[in-house]
């Protein structure tokens, strides 16, 4: 099997995986908020410790809507990955569209970190408005993983510039007789 065929085959699998994730990610988030009160105490929500009372349906709905900010950006990133692996599947490796998708993915990664930074205070406001003690608290936070994603996003943007050079070379190669 030559390299291009291998790229084609693996890309097809990745495309299927990301198509599945496109539905799984928002669905998981929805299920998470729907069954929040039934979940074990130490789950993924960072502000879990701030929640003293059981969350009402309207509050869970508000938190779900707030979570759509980072989830929306993440889903958009997954959508772009599907498009990218779709191009690889068609053996289109160095193309203007590939370069655009890489650049977009880099910006999506950076936007995702920013959205998470916004998401946390929004959630803390929603929670504090509904808590019985009536205290308003705003939480801000960045995790090490966010910094990692931020750096990765910047690297992906740099890679998109390198890909653009590769595209130029391939275009030149295609028009060399």
């Amino acid at each position, binding site marked *: 099997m030559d390299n291009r065929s291998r790229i084609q085959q693996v890309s097809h699998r990745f495309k299927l995986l990301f198509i599945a994730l496109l539905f799984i990610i928002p669905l998981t988030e929805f299920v998470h908020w729907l069954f929040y009160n039934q979940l074990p105490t130490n789950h993924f929500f960072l502000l879990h410790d701030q929640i003293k009372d059981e969350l009402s349906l309207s509050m869970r709905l508000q938190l779900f809507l707030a979570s759509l900010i980072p989830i929306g950006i993440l889903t958009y990133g997954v959508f772009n990955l599907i498009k990218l692996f779709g191009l690889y599947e068609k053996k289109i490796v160095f193309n203007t569209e590939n370069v655009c998708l890489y650049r977009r993915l880099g910006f999506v990664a950076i936007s995702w970190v920013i959205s998470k930074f916004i998401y946390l205070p929004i959630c803390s406001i929603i929670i504090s408005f509904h808590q019985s003690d009536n205290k308003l608290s705003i939480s801000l936070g960045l995790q090490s993983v966010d910094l990692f994603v931020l750096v990765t996003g910047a690297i992906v943007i740099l890679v998109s510039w390198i890909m653009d050079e590769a595209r130029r070379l391939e*275009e*030149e190669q295609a*028009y*060399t*007789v």
Partner: protein
Amino acid sequence: MAIIVNLDVMLAKRKMKSNELAKRIGITEQNLSILKTGKAKAIRFTTLDAICEQLDCQPGDLLEYSKE
């Protein structure tokens, strides 16, 4: 581009069809068309050599420089 490819002129002079030349020099008709229509960004010496041999001409007969 300031370089003009006069391949079609030479083909007419030699009364040879593009597909025949493509077959003789071992390149695809599509690539020869790129060359004929002036879309080519570069030409290999091996290709130029083969064209000159088949059309019995000089590189200067195929390529011409004109100020834009």
